């Protein structure tokens, strides 16, 4: 679907047809999404502007609209106008803004189109405002009136309707598992290597990003190989295996909750111990940190990244890796949702240290990394794809400076973006998941 703007764009027409009731509904949802924390944050921006040149959008475009403080001012302005005394009494003086059609347009363009919710601004904010989460509250308000850019919304719709965000039919998923299992058995010449489905009582319940099943089955095979080598009890679900949750990006908590709850239900039905999340940044943030809040419940089981699990296998001597098997220079991309918002920072480095002979860090890295540009739902909002590729130049330059031949990325969304950057900026690198590199180094 091409979302590029033209005068007959149905999405733009939808904005033009907004009614006062729609705007009122958006405000109601906006208010509902604000809790005491966000209300404090919305009272506290000082417009110091220090967030400007830590944002990949501002560094690329150098315009006012790309400054995080400006994007946030669109949210804070509306908050002040409707929910603060000074905003009602002296609106112009304090920068209060009315939520009307023009503001809705600006919200869409800035909050969906100029922000990947990477959180780099938040850790650099002189006050410490949680800017991406504040922006998400406004996205929630837009979602409530059906104004999520179509590509992103259709990803959520597909996941809700079909059970996974790529609309993979169950028989296709089962066939893929069967086929990958055969490949794995041929690869290691072991008929006992299996990809278990719906195995009750398995220790680990493993989830994938559906794009793995659709386009990159090797990453499924890699994880299967690692679990097999570790001799661990694990399983897939034949129904609920999608780690992604684009509800994080469109701001629809209800839809997000439905998606995450599927994994919880399958975990319980199968009686597994640990929900293991595939290499997917936003999938990790969603299911590890946000889903219990969306569902308002404690899980009662562990939720871990596959990186934590594999690092544990290495540390406990359950698997042995030979770094000599990966001789090419490897660098690592830190996905924002996994690292800066998720807290998984060292595990991927620990795995690569054991799996690769030559490793080089990008600068900056870890919590200070730059977003690849594909987060925040950008990959599915083709309306903004030109911007996405442009802001990705920063990541592309980082990669080039390392001189690496392989970029390890523990996030399938980031991999999609990195593959586009690879082609667009002629980086001539290979892009792999961390588990693929680890699987290549396995000593079996």
């Amino acid at each position, binding site marked *: 679907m091409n979302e590029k703007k033209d005068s007959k764009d149905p999405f733009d027409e939808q904005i033009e047809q907004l009614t006062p009731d729609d705007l009122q509904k958006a405000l109601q949802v906006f208010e509902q999404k604000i809790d*005491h924390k966000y209300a404090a944050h919305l*009272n506290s921006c000082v417009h110091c502007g*220090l967030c400007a*040149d830590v944002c990949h959008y501002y560094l690329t475009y150098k315009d006012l609209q790309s400054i995080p403080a400006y994007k946030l001012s669109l949210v804070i302005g509306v908050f002040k106008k409707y929910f603060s005394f000074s905003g009602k009494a002296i609106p112009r003086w304090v920068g209060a803004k009315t939520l009307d059609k023009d503001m809705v347009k600006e919200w869409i363009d800035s909050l969906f189109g100029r922000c990947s919710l990477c959180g780099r601004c938040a850790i650099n904010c002189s006050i410490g405002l*949680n800017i991406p989460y504040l922006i998400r509250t406004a996205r929630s308000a837009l979602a409530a009136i059906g104004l999520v850019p179509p590509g992103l919304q259709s990803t959520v719709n597909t996941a809700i309707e079909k059970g996974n965000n790529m609309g993979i039919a169950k028989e296709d998923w089962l066939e893929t598992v069967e086929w990958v299992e055969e490949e794995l058995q041929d690869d290691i010449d072991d008929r006992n290597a299996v990809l278990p489905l719906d195995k009750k009582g398995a220790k680990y319940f493993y989830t994938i990003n559906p794009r793995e099943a659709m386009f990159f089955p090797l990453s499924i095979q890699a994880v299967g190989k690692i679990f097999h080598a570790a001799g661990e009890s694990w399983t897939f679900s034949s129904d609920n295996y999608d780690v992604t949750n684009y509800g994080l990006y469109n701001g629809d908590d209800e839809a997000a909750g439905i998606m995450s709850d599927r994994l919880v239900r399958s975990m319980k039905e199968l009686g597994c111990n640990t929900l293991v999340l595939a290499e997917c940044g936003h999938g990790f943030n969603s299911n590890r940190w946000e889903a219990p809040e969306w569902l308002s419940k404690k899980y009662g089981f562990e939720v871990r990244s596959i990186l934590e699990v594999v690092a544990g296998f290495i540390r406990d001597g359950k698997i042995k890796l030979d770094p000599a098997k990966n001789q090419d220079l490897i660098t690592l991309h830190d996905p924002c949702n996994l690292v*800066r*918002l998720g807290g998984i920072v060292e595990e991927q480095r620990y795995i690569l240290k054991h799996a690769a002979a030559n490793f080089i860090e990008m600068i900056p890295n870890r919590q200070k990394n730059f977003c690849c540009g594909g987060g925040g739902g950008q990959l599915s909002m083709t309306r903004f794809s030109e911007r996405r590729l442009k802001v990705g130049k920063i990541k592309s330059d980082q990669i080039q400076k390392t001189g690496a031949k392989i970029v390890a990325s523990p996030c399938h969304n980031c991999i999609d973006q990195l593959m586009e950057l690879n082609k667009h900026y002629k980086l001539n690198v290979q892009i792999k998941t961390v588990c693929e590199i680890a699987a290549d180094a396995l000593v079996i």
Partner: protein
Amino acid sequence: MQTVLKSGVLISMVFSAVTLTILVLKTFSFGKKKLYAEPTGDIKKGITYAFTKGMMPWEKESAGSHLPTYICGMFYHTGIFLALFYIFVVIIPITLPDIAILIFQVFCLSAFVSGIVLLIKRLLTPYMRELSCPDDIAANIIVDIYLVLAFVHTFFPGITTYFYLTAIIMFAYIPLGKIRHCFFFFYIRILFGIFYGRRGVFPTRSKIDET
């Protein structure tokens, strides 16, 4: 006259404190959400990080790459807090030792100069100017006048009337505009520490133990 103004300062202070407290309490009217996800990291360590290393220019890219602004900001806010203390010194009154007065004068003047520098930066940098609303300018000017009067007052106590008048205006303005961040700042840093601390993002965890 002085007694009336002194009472005015105290009333303005109380108004400010009460209104700021109401503002903070009002944030709770939006609801306090219970957190369900099991923490990975340590909230206390996160809060400590938020108030210490997390504010240092070698840790925070925005501070490191804008070092003059960062230094101005540090001087500005240190001076403001000292000048807030100084109003009590004048009202009570308290006799400070000469060395304390000298230190105050240095910080107060540095804060005033820093405030002016930050104001000029705001007015001259195109994107800063566009980001700003009248409140941003007014807040800076009110505080700068307060700082310069506090500084001058240490030499010429005869200007007490003007110092009190400025203090009344400033305290009354605090809850209305951006100066409220002097109160919210600490609240937000705690929230910052809780968010990143419980997720194990900050402080940075040590490398994985091989043993």
